[in-house]
C-alpha cells in the first residue's frame, strides 16, 4: 500500500503524436472505444500484434477491403481472443528461440475485447490464458451489454439497467442481478498486473496500459466504456459520463501491481449517484427511492475499498 503507482504519462505532452488507429472507422458517433483504442496504440507503438474477438470494435474497424489498424491485427471468433493471443505469444517465443525471428525484438501481444467476448462467452479462454502465464495484455472494454447485437444484457450489465433482454415491463424492471466483478475475478488468478480504468482519466488509463505491457506475464485492464447507443445518452456526453462514474464511485480506478492494491484516482469528495444515473436513458425507469437504494450499495462498496486500502481514498458524498 506504500509505493506510488508507476507514472509514464504525466501530461498530454507525453503522448505520442503518431497514430496507429486510422480515421474513417464505422463506430457510432460518440463511441468511447475509439478513444480507448487510439490511446492504447499510442502507448503500445508499432511493434504490437492485436487480437480482437467479434464485437463492436471488430465489425466497425475491419470491413474488407478497409481496415483501421496500422498494426498487425487478427480476429478469429467471439469467445477465444485469449486463446488466440496465447497462440500468438507462444509462436513468437518459439520462433525467437529458433532464431526464425529476431530474438531481441520486443513485440506486444494485446487482446482487446468487449464484456461479452471477455467475461461471458470468452471467460474460459481468458482464465486459461491467465493461468498459463502468457506474456500478453488483455483489455476488456466494458460497455455493460451485448451492444454489437443490439443491447442485450451481459454478465457485466449493472443491476436495474434496461436492455432489450431485461426490458422494463409491468412485472420486471431491468436487470435483476448484480454486475460481475470481472477485474476482481481476474485478480484472483494472481497475475502480475490487474487494473480498472476509464477513458475520462486518460493519463491514468495510459499509464496502466504501459504498466500492463511492461510486466512479465499476463496483465488485464478492465476499462469502462460508456456506450451512447446502449446507455441511451447524447453522443457528446460519453466522457462526461465516464468521469461521473468515477466521481460518484460507481466506478473506481484501481490497480493491483504484483499483489499491491491501490486506488489510482482518489475521490476526496464524492457526488451522489443520481448525477451518473439521470444522464442515461437505460436507468429512466428508476425512482428516486431506487436511486437511494443504489447509493447505499455504492456507499458500502466505498467503505470496503477504503478498508482494503487502509485509509479514506474515496470520501463521503458532498453535494
Amino acid at each position: 500500500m506504500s509505493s506510488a503507482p508507476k507514472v509514464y504519462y504525466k501530461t498530454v505532452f507525453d503522448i505520442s503524436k503518431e497514430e496507429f488507429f486510422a480515421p474513417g472507422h464505422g463506430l457510432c458517433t460518440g463511441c468511447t472505444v475509439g478513444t480507448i483504442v487510439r490511446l492504447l496504440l499510442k502507448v503500445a507503438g508499432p511493434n504490437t500484434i492485436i487480437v480482437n474477438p467479434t464485437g463492436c470494435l471488430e465489425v466497425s474497424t475491419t470491413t474488407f477491403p478497409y481496415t483501421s489498424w496500422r498494426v498487425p491485427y487478427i480476429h478469429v471468433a467471439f469467445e477465444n481472443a485469449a486463446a488466440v493471443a496465447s497462440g500468438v505469444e507462444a509462436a513468437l517465443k518459439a520462433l525467437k528461440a529458433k532464431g526464425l525471428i529476431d530474438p531481441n525484438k520486443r513485440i506486444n501481444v494485446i487482446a482487446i475485447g468487449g464484456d461479452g467476448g471477455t467475461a461471458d462467452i470468452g471467460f474460459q479462454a481468458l482464465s486459461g490464458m491467465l493461468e498459463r502465464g502468457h506474456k500478453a495484455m488483455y483489455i476488456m472494454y466494458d460497455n455493460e451489454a451485448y451492444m454489437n447485437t443490439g443491447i442485450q444484457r451481459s454478465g457485466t450489465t449493472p443491476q436495474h439497467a434496461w436492455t432489450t433482454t431485461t426490458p422494463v415491463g409491468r412485472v420486471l424492471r431491468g436487470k435483476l442481478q448484480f454486475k460481475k466483478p470481472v477485474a476482481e475475478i481476474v485478480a484472483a488468478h494472481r497475475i502480475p498486473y490487474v487494473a480498472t480504468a476509464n477513458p475520462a482519466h486518460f493519463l491514468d488509463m495510459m499509464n496502466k496500459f504501459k504498466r500492463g505491457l511492461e510486466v512479465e506475464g499476463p496483465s488485464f485492464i478492465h476499462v469502462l466504456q460508456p456506450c451512447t447507443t446502449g446507455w441511451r445518452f447524447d453522443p457528446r456526453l460519453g466522457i462526461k459520463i465516464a468521469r461521473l462514474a468515477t466521481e460518484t464511485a460507481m466506478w473506481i480506478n484501481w490497480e493491483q501491481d504484483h499483489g499491491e492494491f491501490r486506488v489510482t484516482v482518489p475521490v476526496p469528495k464524492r457526488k451522489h449517484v443520481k448525477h451518473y444515473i439521470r444522464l442515461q436513458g437505460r436507468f429512466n425507469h428508476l425512482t428516486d427511492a431506487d436511486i437511494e437504494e443504489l447509493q447505499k450499495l455504492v456507499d458500502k462498496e466505498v467503505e470496503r475499498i477504503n478498508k482494503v486500502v487502509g485509509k479514506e481514498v474515496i470520501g463521503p458524498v458532498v453535494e
Partner: protein
Amino acid sequence: MSAWIRIPLTSNYAAAYAAKDADVDVVAAYPITPQTPVVEKIAEFIANGELQAEMVHVESEHSALSACIGASATGARVFTATSSQGLELMHELLYIASGLRLPIVMAIAARALSAPLSIWGDYSDVMATRDASWITIIASTAQEVYDSIIQVYKVAEHPDVLLPAMVAYDGFMMSHTYEPVHVARDKSIVLEFIPKRKPSWNVLDPDKPITIGAVGNPDWYYEFKYQQVVAMENSQSILRQVFDEFSKKFGRGYDFIETYNMDGSDIAVLTYGGLYGTVVEAVDHMKKQGLNIGAIRLRVFRPWPTEELLKVLKELRAVIVIDRAIGFGAALEGPVAMEVLTTASKKGLNVALHSYIASIGQRTVIEEDVIAIVKKSLELLEKGVTITERSIYWGVRQ
C-alpha cells in the same frame, strides 16, 4: 547406417513422432480419449529436448485450435490432435482455420460421438467435418499416419493450397495398437522434404502490418469462399506431386485410394481406416473359397478423389461400401457411399452400389462379417437390387 529406424509404435505415437520430425514450433492440444497419448508423447519429446517447441496447455479443444490459429497466423508451424467431442468443440474454428487459409495440421484418433457416451472408435467425428474445407486423409496403418502427417505439411503449406489438413485413424484399433514403423533416425531427412522456410502464407508481422480475419460483406464474402474452392481443387495436383516425391525420396508409396485384388474382380468392397485390413483378409479367405472380390480403400477423403475412383469403378459391376458413420436422415445414410454414388453418376457408370453401416461405436467387425456382407450383396444383386433402398445396418439388434 539407414536413415530410418524400425520401432514399434501405436498410431498415436506415430502421429507424435511425425510432429517431432516436422520440427513443429507450437503444439496446442487438449487430452481426450483415445487421442491422449499423442499429447503425452509430444510433452515427453519437449521435456527431453528432442523437440524444441512451445506447448500451450490449453483448457479446451476450442482453445487448442484457437491457439493453433494464432500461432500459425504468426508464422509458426503448428500441430494439434483430438477426437470426437473435442473435434466437435473445435467445429466452429475448423471453418475459420480454413477460411483464414492457415496450414494447420491435426491428427484425429477417430471416435464415436455422444450420446450415449462412447469412447470407442468410429468415424462420426471425422465425417462431421466434411464441409469444413480441410484436406482429410484417413490412414490405415501407423506407418501411414507418420508418413501422411509429413506429406500434408508439404501440401498445406504449398502456396497454391494454404489449407489446413487432418490425418485420421481408428480410435483404439489403431490409436492404441502397436505396429512396426520406420521413423527418421534424424529429423533432418524429413526436414529436407518439408523445409522450414519463410512462411508462404500471410502472417502477423509488425514490419508489414496486415489485418487478418476481416468482415466479408455480401459484395466480398462469396469470392473469399470461391478462392477456397479453387485451393481445394489445386490441392489435388499438389497431393499427387507430394505423393510421387515422397515415394521417390523415401520409397514408401501412397495414393488417393488403395486397391487389392482388383484384377478380374467385378465386385469390390470399399471402406476406410483400419477396417481395410480386415477387408483384405476377408478377400483372401473368399479367394480360397473361389469367390473373387476386390478391395478398395478410400485414403484421401477431401479433396474427393473422383478421377482415381472412376478408374476402378468403371471396371466394376457392383461396389459394396462399408461406412463407419451414420448420416442420419440422408438420402443414403452412409456418407462415403453417397459420394461414391455421385462419383459413378458423374460418368453414368452402370455400377450397383450397396451401402452398409458397420463398426459404429466400435462394434466388432471381423473377416466373417465382411464375407457375410459380400454374400448378402450377391443375393441382393441376384434379386436385381442395384442401389440399396437405404443403408443396411450390419450387426445391429433391431
